[in-house]
């Protein structure tokens, strides 16, 4: 009986030793390759899924090792993607619409957040601007080629005005408030967090107009036109984002804290914007239609030098999303 036990113990030991040996020798072969990536992330709470993914190590479980290049605004992120400085970037649908007119070789892989109140119209209290009609002839600051400029143009058009009817000043997003302080402009259209910062800084001097719901903005993952390897990398980035999305849904308090720490924001600000944001991965026809309509708008209102709207389908690459979340893809194949 003892001999039998000893034999079995020895056989088990040999099997376990062999398994351990194989595991340690071939572990590297089983693991996915880790692609080092640089992502240009816009320094806005809209990029929360990226910050959360990084903070909770969501990318560690995928095939990419990610580094962030933090930039101000989706337009700069776009520029860095096109110059090859970074592999991926985060841009709003407005930026995509404006850039699609330039026929640059880029694609959108996924939409990860949307807000219906990110860009706000802020006017000087003393300027007595109560309606859009009152904007006529005023000096207004926008960031060229972004949601800021697009939103202004639509607001004006509602009252039959165009950008010709106002004095348009182009600023970098973080410079908009300086133009206002220097009294170069009476109104400006910043996005968050600059809207909140301006409201804090100029409390009492300004009026923040109620425009919630008039302009839905989305933030998207973009890259240069993707080959198979880039699609594979995009897939892994989206996998990391998907994990982050689940975390945001189940741990909103912790997620807010992560963004506050990363962007040095106050709890007050996060509470100000958080309810406007919907963090959700998707690639819908509505995004395509939105980009297309904004591009048509830009051409029609002569906001751009280009006058031909290309086929927007070229700028959508659903391959990565189809691998990660096929349910969330709803575009004509």
């Amino acid at each position, binding site marked *: 009986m003892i001999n039998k036990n000893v034999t079995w113990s020895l056989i088990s030991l040999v099997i376990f030793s062999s398994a351990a040996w194989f595991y340690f020798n071939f572990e590297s072969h089983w693991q996915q390759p880790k692609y080092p990536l640089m992502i240009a992330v816009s320094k806005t709470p809209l990029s929360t899924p990226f910050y959360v993914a990084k903070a909770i190590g969501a990318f560690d479980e995928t095939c990419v090792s990610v580094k962030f290049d933090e930039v101000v605004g989706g337009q700069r992120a776009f520029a860095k993607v096109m110059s090859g400085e970074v592999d991926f970037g985060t841009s709003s649908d407005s930026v995509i619409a404006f850039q699609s007119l330039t026929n640059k070789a880029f694609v959108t892989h996924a939409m990860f957040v949307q807000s219906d109140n990110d860009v706000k119209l802020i006017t000087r209290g003393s300027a007595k601007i109560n309606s859009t009609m009152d904007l006529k002839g005023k000096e207004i600051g926008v960031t060229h080629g972004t949601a800021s400029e697009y939103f202004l143009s639509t607001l004006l058009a509602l009252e039959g005005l165009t950008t010709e009817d106002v004095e348009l000043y182009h600023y970098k997003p973080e410079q908009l408030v300086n133009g206002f302080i220097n009294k170069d402009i009476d109104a400006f259209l910043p996005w968050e967090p600059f809207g909140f910062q301006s409201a804090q800084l100029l409390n009492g001097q300004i009026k923040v107009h109620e425009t919630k719901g008039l302009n*839905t903005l989305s933030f998207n993952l973009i890259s240069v036109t993707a080959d198979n390897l880039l699609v594979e990398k995009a897939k892994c980035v989206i996998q990391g984002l998907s994990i982050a999305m689940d975390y945001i849904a189940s741990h909103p308090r912790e997620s807010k804290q992560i963004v506050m720490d990363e962007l040095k924001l106050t709890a007050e600000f996060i509470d100000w914007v958080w309810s406007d944001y919907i963090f959700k991965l*998707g690639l819908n*026809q509505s995004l395509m239609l939105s980009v297309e309509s904004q591009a048509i708008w830009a051409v029609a209102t002569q906001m751009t030098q280009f006058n031909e709207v290309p086929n927007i389908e070229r700028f959508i690459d659903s391959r990565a999303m189809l691998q990660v979340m096929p349910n969330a893809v709803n575009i004509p194949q």
Partner: protein
Amino acid sequence: MNISLLQRIFFFTLGCCFLFILLLGSVIWSSQAIELAFSRNHYAQQLTNQTNTLKQLVANDNIYDSHYSINDWRSVEVKLTALLKSSPHLTEQQKTIQNSLQSQNESLKSLFILINKNKLKNASEIIKKHLKAKLMIQLEAIRSDALHLSAIAQKDIYDTIKKQAILIISVSAVSILALLFGAFTLTSIVRKSLNEVKRAFETNHSGDYQNIQLSHHSQEFDSIAEAFNIMNEKLSESTVSLTEMKKIVEERTHVLEQLSKTDPLTKVGNRRALFERANMEFSRAMRSKSKLTLLLLDCDFFKNVNDEFGHLFGDELLIHICSICGQEIRDIDFLARYGGEEFIIVLPNCDIAGGIETANRIQNSLARHCVAIEGKKVCVTLSIGISMLSERHKNLDQLINDADKAMYLAKENGRNRIEVLPAPNLH
């Protein structure tokens, strides 16, 4: 741990019941999960339908026309809003989509109110077209979210059914294995224990009282074994076993055989033993053409000794003669009492000369060893007749008869002497 068979069956049944309840529970849970997933799917499809209706209302008519009836739109929009408020229980992921749907719906309502505010009388055609496109985009966004919700619900249905199928297969497989194992174990215990009890009975039958040693313990068979072992113990105490009985019978038979072939006084062979042995030696000598010699010894004046010293001394004297003879013959020779004071010695592989020599040795030894009684030495002599097997002897009686004749010749010729028949050539 000693568990009874009944307990085993009880636990076994309990285990089966537990597995069955587990299976039943999982089926109920799954049906509820599937029902919930179906209700979510239904909800998503209703949303899609309402959105499609709204899309048709926007696409087919000119919404900026002063005659455009917004009542149709409003009634559908109210239904959509009410529907959004009566969502079934959703998962965290689905709640995010639900939030998106509600937010998109609010944007949709804001946009529609904006469009219908004075029908945008100051606005250009471009912005009107653009806003209509935005309205469609908003509706498309709601539709996309509804489709996403529906796809998740459908996947949930598929996953739940798949999970349930795997669970049912696994639980069934485990149940069947457990049933087989349980049945096999029970059968094996009962069969082995019954065999062991049967073997014990068989062993017992042959008179060997062995205790039952059960390889599997169960309360029922242990109690049978205990009762059997107690019975065995009592039986073995009160009964002589067959083996012992055989041994005793063999011993007694051997003793009886010895007694039936031994002369009770002198302890040498009696007539029966003499004829048995002598016949055997006669046959062997005839068969192998070997030699065979008989000595017939008779005590001289034995009657006188008996009369003078009594029968007891006579008996002692006979014993003494046998003792002397026994010392002087070979191991293969056979001494027997022929009758009264007559003895016969069978000498296999021995001729006349050998017989004479043996007879001489006996006479000499007897002459040297007298028997003492009441301080007197009494010496006796023997008349010895010798016969050797020859062609004329057809049977043992003839050979004995020759020895007898020779012995009478010795008596006639003066006693204490040796006579041979037939007379050898050397005389």
